[in-house]
């Protein structure tokens, strides 16, 4: 199972896929926490749809890992050690109660990075990834537009503006971990799995998010001035928030002891 042996045993394709899948899965878990609690009925529905999309993307990437590298869902999601997950710590952080600003800022920062990442995977030398990118991109644009619609309207003035600023201040250092590289980076680039290095993606991301947020009168910390979080996620270091979340979502799986996790697929899955 991924992580049983030293990480360097992973192929570049596997490493890239795990990172993709883990990001989407954990982000989706945090989104679902808003169900029934969202500010309005309509916003509840919109965020639920985004959560479903993200779980769907995670599933799409986990499926690919299963098909190509011979794993089972149980090994990839339910029985994998928490420290073997490779998602950015941005997506695992708990959302403070009532902090809708946190969610839209987190979503925005993530969605821009995701678009850049997927663009760089669209021409992957590894066909199974390239084939799937358009489907995922098709849904991600709504996510970004959704986050921006909220940011446009919350940053007017007063309390909501302050909350967005506070969220940016808190989340920004973690957002940088989206681009933290791993020992696999050279191989990923050499093999052409991804066509642009993380450092380039980071640079484009900074240009875009800083420009947009500053246009809304939100100050963005300078990367050089931000302290790198202890837990980066990409190397298996995670926060206590993740440990708690992991325990919660795997508890029932272990309690029930089913032979294998249930699947519900249509003909065109």
């Amino acid at each position, binding site marked *: 199972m991924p992580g049983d042996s030293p990480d360097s045993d992973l192929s570049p394709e596997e490493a890239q896929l795990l990172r993709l899948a883990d990001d989407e899965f954990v982000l989706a878990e945090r989104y679902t926490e808003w*169900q029934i609690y969202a500010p309005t009925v309509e916003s509840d529905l919109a965020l639920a749809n985004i959560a479903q999309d993200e779980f769907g993307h995670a599933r799409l990437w986990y499926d690919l890992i299963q098909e190509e590298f011979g794993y089972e869902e149980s090994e990839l999601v339910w029985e994998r050690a928490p420290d073997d997950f490779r998602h950015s710590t941005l997506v695992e952080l708990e959302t403070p109660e009532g902090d809708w600003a946190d969610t839209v800022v987190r979503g925005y920062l993530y969605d821009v990075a995701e678009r850049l990442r997927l663009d760089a995977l669209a021409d992957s030398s590894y066909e199974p990834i390239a084939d799937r990118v358009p489907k995922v991109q098709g849904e991600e644009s709504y996510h970004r537009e959704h986050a921006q619609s909220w940011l446009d309207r919350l940053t007017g003035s007063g309390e909501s503006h302050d909350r967005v600023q506070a969220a940016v201040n808190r989340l920004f250092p973690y957002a940088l971990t989206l681009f933290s590289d791993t020992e696999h980076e050279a191989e990923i680039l050499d093999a052409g799995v991804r066509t642009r290095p993380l450092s380039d993606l980071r640079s484009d991301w900074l240009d875009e998010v800083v420009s947009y947020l500053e246009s809304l009168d939100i100050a963005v910390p300078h990367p050089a001035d931000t302290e790198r979080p202890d837990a980066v996620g990409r190397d298996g270091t995670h926060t206590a928030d993740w440990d708690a979340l992991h325990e*919660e979502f795997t508890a029932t799986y272990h309690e*029930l002891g089913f032979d294998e996790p*249930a699947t519900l697929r249509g003909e065109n899955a």
Partner: protein
Amino acid sequence: MDIETVKQRAGPREFSPADDLPREYREAATRMIQFHANSEVMGGYLDKAFTRMAPSIDRKLACTAKCQDEIGHAQLLYRAAETLGVKSREQMLTELEEGDGKFLNCFHYPVDSWYEAPMIDFFVDGGAMRRQATLKNTSWEPYAHAMDKVCFEEGFHVKHGEDILRELMRSSKANQERTQEVFDEWWPRILQFFGPTNDESRHDDFAQQVGLKTVSNDELRNSFLNMYVPKAEKYGLEIPEYPRIFERDDGTMAVREDDLDWDEFWTIAKNDYEGSHEQIGSRRRRHEAVAWVRDSMDEWETGAAGSPQAAD
């Protein structure tokens, strides 16, 4: 229109916002639809818990989609209630968080295990679907329209619920026993879901006279038994001895109503049960925590006066 005319004309989809209906009708309809809308919201809390517990990615997806549907149904229903001109959605949501909004008994019991998922997602949802099908013939047109969409969407809820039950009852003995235990606890609540027996119901008579309600609580309860008892038994669940279920002359099943604990039910109906306080308290806290977002959106909306923005 006077109330006698309303009773005479009462029929499926007969009345719409274009009609000038007496206050009694409008208040009765508001009460009924508001209860339904509140129940979708409060039922959502349980399905939300199940989403986090779900033991596979696909189960998780189905749970989160169901949860989403519930809020979608609440949206339709609060709107349908608003059309009666008695209360706004905001008022109804405020009443809910302040403990004045009523909702289904089953949602006054917080859940804490996956074994409870089929109780809600198969049995309670199955009962709800039965009731909702009959409400397609309600006299308040916007309510009937909402039911069209609700009935269209709910099919997968009940089937998913049954699938969860099937999986549990075909797995380990420990799981089967635990599921049976949980079923024993939930069964009486499920039977009371249909509301008080015909004798005890205060509002029913009027609701039926004006066509808001087309089938009595007892009829709904009994048709539920006929459909869901065989299913429960098919999966190896034993129907608890109490409340006693008997076969009537025409071969259909019915329940001995005085075997049910109506004390607990009426306490719940007043939002006064322990679980009621927990669920409503949780609602209030969470709803208040995001009041700042709603305030912000209201400001945005009025700030752009002249051209309504598509703000949430």
